[in-house]
């Protein structure tokens, strides 16, 4: 009975946390469909307006670095409330922005709030669950993390169609208000686990923050130039890579103070999971960038209709998520992810051949299967990145995985945008020309998805799970 009550309590906490994270997660993709409208409305240029999305990712990534440490030192509940309020302030700023500069500042504040909320979502739920049944729990927590970005363009499309782009930010206000009330009323305090633990690693923060910012800047420049043959692209990329190397040396030398401990990577599961999360950032975010554009430019669909098509991905994800969670807990992550890679590849492959005459039912079917593949590629990996990780290292693990996911996401969109740009240079954007460019971008996306099978082999599988179970039994007997 106690076990059942405990389970209810965890699910309740999960739902409150998810509600607070809905708006930040929606805003990662919802803004993408509004970029053109914002650019024209605020009379900006392509290079400036891209900071509306890039600035958000950048600010989110830097805050993630801080949140891991802060969740040990401060009450999880208070930190979560602070994150949501910060996000609310950013949303109001963005909504009322009269020029592109104010909008970018608003997005930076939003990103900072989002970084706190999104990191705490998994950290607090893993803490509440005590590291048990992570597969099925992550199916609950991971669902919005995958489903909401899919629905972002749909909801954004409807809002722009019916109201205007400012409402993309205003809609956050009631969601956040309800969420704050529920968190204050129902969520436990999650007291600081290491109130007098290690002080904040400022050096590590500066190195990792600099690395993240430089890599994102380099990726954005790469996307603008379309190749590596410019110092404007190479310098930030090299600084990012050098800072990564510097961090490894630093974290090894000062392992007790390091913001993200290298000992996490001793777990093969964790290392494999982080590589897949980096790659899934490329494939999932890349596809989220590619599919709406493809549906609008090649199929000639409106923003609203392209978003409606994408709902089929969400349906695929919804249908499969319970089974994915159960299977992950029963047979481990390896085979679930490998099969998902195959499904994702096979369901994306037809997009490399589809044209404007392809039946919409076939597209819906493929999107449905893509949803299944996408769920299988992210939900189990998120849970596996925590398996075998000590409870006190969960915040650090979240920091590492979130940072890599963000870098992967930015990289995915940049690679695919560059492929499309290089294919259409000087060509009038006719359906036929665009169709060829998008086909090439889909082939790239498929290749990266297929490559995820390599790190997937290092994820946990049923033998690992049995070993772990046996260890637990022995430990229990010893007591």
């Amino acid at each position, binding site marked *: 009975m106690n076990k059942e009550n405990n389970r209810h309590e965890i699910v309740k906490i999960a739902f409150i946390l998810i509600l607070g994270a809905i708006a930040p997660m929606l805003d990662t993709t919802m803004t993408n469909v509004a970029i053109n409208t914002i650019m024209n409305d605020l009379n900006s240029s392509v290079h400036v307006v891209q900071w509306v999305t890039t600035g958000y990712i950048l600010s989110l990534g830097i805050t993630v670095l801080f949140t891991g440490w802060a969740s040990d030192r401060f009450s999880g509940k208070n930190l979560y409330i602070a994150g949501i309020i910060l996000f609310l302030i950013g949303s109001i700023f963005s909504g009322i922005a009269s020029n592109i500069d104010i909008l970018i500042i608003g997005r930076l504040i939003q990103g900072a709030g989002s970084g706190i909320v999104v990191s705490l979502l998994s950290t607090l739920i893993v803490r509440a669950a005590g590291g048990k049944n992570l597969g099925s729990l992550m199916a609950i927590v991971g669902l919005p993390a995958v489903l909401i970005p899919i629905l972002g363009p749909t909801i954004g499309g409807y809002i722009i169609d019916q109201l205007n782009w400012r409402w993309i930010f205003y809609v956050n206000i009631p969601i956040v208000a309800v969420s704050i009330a529920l968190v204050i009323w129902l969520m436990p305090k999650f007291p600081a686990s290491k109130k007098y633990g290690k002080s904040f690693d400022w050096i590590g923060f500066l190195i990792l923050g600099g690395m993240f910012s430089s890599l994102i800047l380099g990726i954005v420049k790469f996307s603008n130039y379309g190749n590596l*043959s410019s110092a404007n692209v*190479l310098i930030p990329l090299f600084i990012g890579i050098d800072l990564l190397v510097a961090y490894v*040396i630093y974290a090894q*030398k000062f392992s007790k103070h390091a913001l993200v401990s290298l000992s996490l990577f001793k777990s093969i599961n964790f290392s494999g999971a982080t590589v897949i999360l980096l790659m899934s950032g490329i494939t999932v975010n890349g596809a989220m960038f590619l599919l709406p554009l493809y549906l609008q430019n090649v199929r000639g669909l409106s923003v609203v209709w392209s978003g409606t098509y994408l709902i089929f991905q969400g349906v695929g994800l919804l249908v499969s998520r319970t089974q994915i969670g159960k299977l992950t807990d029963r047979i481990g992550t390896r085979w679930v992810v490998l099969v998902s890679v195959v499904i994702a590849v096979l369901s994306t492959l037809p997009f490399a051949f589809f044209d404007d005459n392809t039946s919409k039912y076939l597209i819906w079917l493929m999107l449905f299967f893509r949803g299944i593949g996408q769920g299988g590629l992210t939900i189990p990996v998120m849970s596996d990145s925590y398996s075998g990780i000590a409870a006190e290292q969960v915040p650090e693990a979240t920091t590492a995985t979130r940072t890599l996911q963000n870098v992967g996401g930015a990289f995915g969109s940049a690679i695919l945008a560059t492929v499309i740009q290089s294919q259409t*240079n000087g060509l009038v954007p006719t359906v036929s020309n665009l169709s060829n460019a998008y086909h090439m971008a889909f082939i790239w996306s498929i290749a990266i998805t297929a490559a995820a099978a390599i790190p997937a082999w290092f994820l946990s599988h049923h033998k690992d799970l049995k070993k772990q179970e046996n260890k637990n039994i022995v430990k229990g007997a010893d007591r």
Partner: protein
Amino acid sequence: MIIIISLICIIGIILLALLGNIPHRITIGAILIITLLASQTLLIADTHYHWGTELKVMSSKKTIYPLVNFPGSNHILVYQNINQGKEQKQIYVYKGSTQSHKSQTTYSNGITVKLLINQSQKNASRIKSVSQYRYTNKADQILFAGIINNHQIKKNTVSFVLPRNWFVISKTNLVKAGKDIKKNTKKTVSKQLKDYLQEHPKEATNKSAIQREENELLKKYTKKTLVKYSKN
């Protein structure tokens, strides 16, 4: 090759940091860091100096024909503006042959479009120039692979060389120019012809001279109107 050397250095430094018991760890680490920084400096410098390459420009020329003509052999190169916020790009429309019903297009996205108007030549042409880096030194080609590749394009330029009777007009202005000409030509030309005949009363009886003058005035007026609406 230098990219691969850089990657090896990165992996080496990380392994040295992680695996503690390696003899001469500090020395090897220092060599790897120096090599990494030197490689990166070389790669950045190559984006400026393009070692071992020469810039080759390849051009192709094609005669183009107008999609729209106005009286008096006034030809139009039509373009449409594509707005992207503050930025504006253009699609230029023309024909590849006089008989062709199919139009050809050039989009100024990712390429440089030059309009060389009022040129002395008889026919209009489109010149495509592609400047690309060609390696003259195999060693440099291998060393800098991935940064500057062989045949890498530096710049794509399309130049429209247009004689004096060609006008570059946007689609919107073309409609306005058409309406203007249709509305005002007859009135203006007949007034100008009347003035001309008053100045040259002897030619009032010479039908062919009147016709010739009328055509000339029509051509001049059309040209004046097109200039008003064009980029020329």
